[in-house]
């Protein structure tokens, strides 16, 4: 049962589905009860950095898998079964489909990499603020 001040979960894998009433790894807390009281007043935002780093690792693993699948498509050569126009067109359309698949996977990889970069920046920023607040307290 979550307490009124700690709405997130403390256990479980980093990439679970998060219910609407579950704030997951980002949770509200009463700053007055914590050492950050000098830096923020009232209620603050807290991030579980270790879980966030776990999400980064999972995203990196997923990005590697997507990149690997994209590379694997290089090994597929579509050779026309004969030299007539229909056969050549079959090979051309097949090649187009392979490149379209590669484009989809490349775009997905771009998005994953952007998410990884953004999350790493958030973690870094949070760490900086955390250390600054710790020095003030």
């Amino acid at each position, binding site marked *: 049962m979550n307490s009124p001040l700690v709405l997130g979960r403390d256990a479980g894998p980093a990439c679970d589905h998060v219910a609407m009433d579950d704030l997951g790894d980002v949770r509200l807390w009463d700053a007055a009860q914590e050492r950050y009281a000098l830096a923020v007043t009232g209620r603050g935002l807290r991030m579980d950095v270790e879980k966030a780093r776990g999400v980064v690792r999972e995203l*990196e693993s997923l*990005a*590697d898998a997507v*990149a690997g699948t*994209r*590379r694997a498509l*290089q*090994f597929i*050569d*579509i*050779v026309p079964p004969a030299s007539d126009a229909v056969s050549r067109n079959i*090979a*051309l359309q097949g*090649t*187009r*489909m392979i*490149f*379209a698949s*590669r*484009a989809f996977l*490349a*775009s997905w*990889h*771009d998005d994953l*990499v*952007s998410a*990884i*970069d953004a999350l790493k920046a958030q973690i870094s920023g949070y760490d900086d603020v955390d250390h600054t607040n710790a020095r003030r307290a």
Partner: protein
Amino acid sequence: MSFVLNVNQTLSLITQGRDGVQGYLEFALRGYPAIRENSPGESSCAVYVGIAESQVFVMDFTTRSLDESVKACDVAQRGSEAVIDSLSSRS
């Protein structure tokens, strides 16, 4: 980074289906015909180089960061140039 040598393949099929190739760019690499395929954000890039009538090698580079200091296509192109230089020195 990955390197793949395809025999019995030509660049013409890629050229004919250029409208489906993301970031399609034709250019010459050390005098050899080459085609570039890259993602919009350039987290990945492949360079196809035709080194013989039916031989194409592909140099593919993928990065986990969109950091400006690492351009996937620059790396893939430098890798391709290194392969051509290496082949030239042995022929």
